[in-house]
């Protein structure tokens, strides 16, 4: 008998491979699609060249003062460059800026460490450090308690203030919101209702109103004669606001932990706190990670609203720069665009990280 010999495989038909086919399939598959494609291309063709010209080709890059912006048809990046130190660090003294940088590096290092270290080290070192970080940073940035030069909070500012405020708030909000979420699940009716009221209040009220509360109302709440630094007041408000949101994130996480985990822990004879902290919490945090990041991004973007109550974060520094009598040339487009780009880069990379965590956690087989 003749042995069966398959014919060599034929190459794919010419019209199903190559860029031409790809374009046919993806851009011009139907008359409607063709029109849409052409319209989109035409739109970009008219918008992009003048934009590139304004942004880069005709833009003014070199100089220190407003008069260096000679080309009227281009952006005045001199403005952004001259003010860049203010935009990033506020008025923090130049020779002390290393302290701000160190705090930022510390933040990043501890976050990376808590992902990379082994479990034992993580529980014993990284997590306590993480929770203490806001307080350590404040001691460090303020300086007067640890023998460094004292820098009043009035000099803190710029983009680093946005980052540090957001980070300090979310870190303190971690334990707080966890307790609120636990309270909301509690069997004790009074504790449950207090938790619900707290959570719903801080979620249901605009953050701008909370900021106003921090700036105009909180001073009335403290005993007469005491005066609490404005930044601390804002920090309290941001933390409470954040806790409301995070408590709901944690509640979702609690619900997603399989019931068997609770029962298994109970059957091992663990008490309530052992069960919650050792068995449930790690799983909750893992499940909630993408949502925690999303909430952080929201908080981070919301720190720009602080401009309404006169805190020199990045956007408000930009507005100050625009009202300086030596820079009254209408640079608002450049200034706001720069702020937008900086925030976009940060928020976009965080949402990328969040997506990748989500993919890693996602073990379902959809397709």
């Amino acid at each position, binding site marked *: 008998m003749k042995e069966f010999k398959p014919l060599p495989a034929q190459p794919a038909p010419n019209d199903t491979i190559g860029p031409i086919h790809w374009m046919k399939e*993806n851009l011009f598959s139907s008359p409607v699609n063709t029109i849409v*494609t052409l319209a989109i291309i035409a739109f970009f063709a008219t918008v992009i060249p003048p934009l590139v010209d304004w942004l880069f080709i005709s833009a003014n890059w070199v100089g220190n003062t407003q008069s260096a912006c000679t080309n009227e048809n281009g952006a005045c990046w001199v403005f952004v460059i001259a003010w860049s130190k203010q935009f990033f660090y506020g008025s923090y003294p130049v020779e002390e800026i290393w302290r701000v940088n160190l705090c930022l590096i510390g933040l990043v290092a501890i976050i990376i460490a808590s992902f990379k270290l082994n479990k034992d080290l993580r529980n014993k070192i990284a997590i306590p450090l993480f929770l203490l970080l806001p307080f350590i940073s404040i001691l460090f940035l303020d300086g007067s308690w640890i023998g460094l030069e004292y820098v009043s909070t009035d000099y803190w500012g710029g983009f680093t203030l946005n980052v540090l405020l957001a980070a300090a708030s979310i870190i303190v909000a971690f334990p707080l919101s966890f307790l609120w979420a636990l309270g909301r699940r509690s069997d004790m009716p009074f504790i449950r209702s207090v938790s619900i009221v707290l959570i719903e209040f801080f979620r249901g*009220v605009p953050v*701008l*109103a909370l900021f106003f509360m921090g700036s105009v109302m909180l001073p*009335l709440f403290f*005993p007469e004669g005491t005066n609490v630094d404005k930044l601390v007041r804002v920090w309290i408000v941001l933390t409470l606001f954040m806790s409301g949101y995070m408590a709901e994130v944690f509640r979702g996480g609690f619900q997603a932990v399989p019931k068997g985990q609770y029962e298994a822990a109970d059957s091992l004879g663990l008490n309530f706190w052992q069960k919650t902290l050792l068995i449930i919490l790690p799983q909750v945090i893992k499940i909630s990670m993408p949502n925690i990041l999303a909430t952080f991004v929201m908080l981070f973007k919301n720190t720009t609203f602080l401009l309404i109550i006169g805190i020199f974060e990045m956007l408000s520094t930009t507005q100050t720069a625009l009202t300086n009598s030596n820079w009254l040339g209408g640079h608002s*487009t450049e200034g*706001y665009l720069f702020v937008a780009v900086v925030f976009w880069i940060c928020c*976009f990379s965080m949402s990328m990280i969040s997506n990748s965590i989500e993919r890693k956690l996602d073990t379902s087989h959809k397709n």
Partner: protein
Amino acid sequence: MPEKPLVKSSPSFFNNPRNRSLIYQFLLLIGLAYFFYGIVSNTLANMEARGIKSGYDFLSTTAGFDILMSLVPYDATHTYGRTFIVGLLNTILVSTIGIILSTIVGFLMGIAHFSHNWLIRKLAVAYIETFRNIPLLLQIFFWYFAVLAALPSARQSMSFGEMIFLNVRGLYFPGLIAESGAGIVYGAIAAAIAGIFILIRWAKNRQNETGQQFPVLSTSIGILLGLPLLALFVSGFPFIWDFPALKGFNFRGGITVIPELMALALALTIYTGAFIAEAVRAGIQAVPQGQREAARSLGLKESKIMKLIIVPQAMRVITPLLNSEYQSLVKNSTLATAIGYPDLFTVFVGTTLNQTGQAIEIVFMTMAVYFVINMSISFVMNRFNASVELAERN
């Protein structure tokens, strides 16, 4: 004979979970009471020291300032209480517009994510990732100071048939002034809407029973236009047209949509739309692939698959997310204060607070209003959620 209790020795007092929970709650109550007592007594002492009078008397004093846009009659001689109403209505207006438009934009962009056209797909992704990640305040500035400010001045307005005008001062429509007899037309509109609801229900029942479809959409449009038109003829057109016209510095007459409203509504729509699009995308992806394949094998058209099979199932994932997006839209509308749209926050926490100095009362009232609005949204959305939830059949 009395029964012997099963457990003889009850656990010690502190180990009894009931007692423990009572003690915890009691401690919390005391802590709370102490906390609030502290705050209230401090506040009262501080207010006395600073000569601040508390109370809501200011609501009935004359405001003395003007508000750019008002849905109810208002001028500087009205009271602060009236400014509260004006601001509240403006907040509700912009929130409603924002919620409707952002839902449309969000669903379009979320579905566009699954388009067959590569460019549309990429455009949807670019839209979501750009507008989701830039602070809203900057986006409001962008629409107001960059886009809308580029419109022509009042004298060089763009005009559409000499009836609708668009310039940097706003969008001007011809308005209708009602005369006697207009009630018939309003009644006809109400009747048409009621008729459409009945029609939809009837058509659905008929389809369930007989499988025959009824052209609901075209009939509804017919009823909605036809009935009021008929009423107009019957009553002899009881309206006068009020055309906008350039008089002095500005257009007068007709209906004006101020650019602050346009910019705020645009920014809220685009920003929230990006979040809704992301929610829609997640919802559609959560629908098992098998559903789509099953629908295809039944021979449904692609557009029908989306509408009848995918989106209804995706709604289960989307609705809770929509709920929180709508709530943040309402809360974000407070940023109106940055461009001077006279919403509750601008009018009340802005100008009124500054003039009366009643910080506690005003901030409290404002918070309460937003809280109530958000609770109502939550209530409606939870009802809606219950209707789309998976109906388990036994």
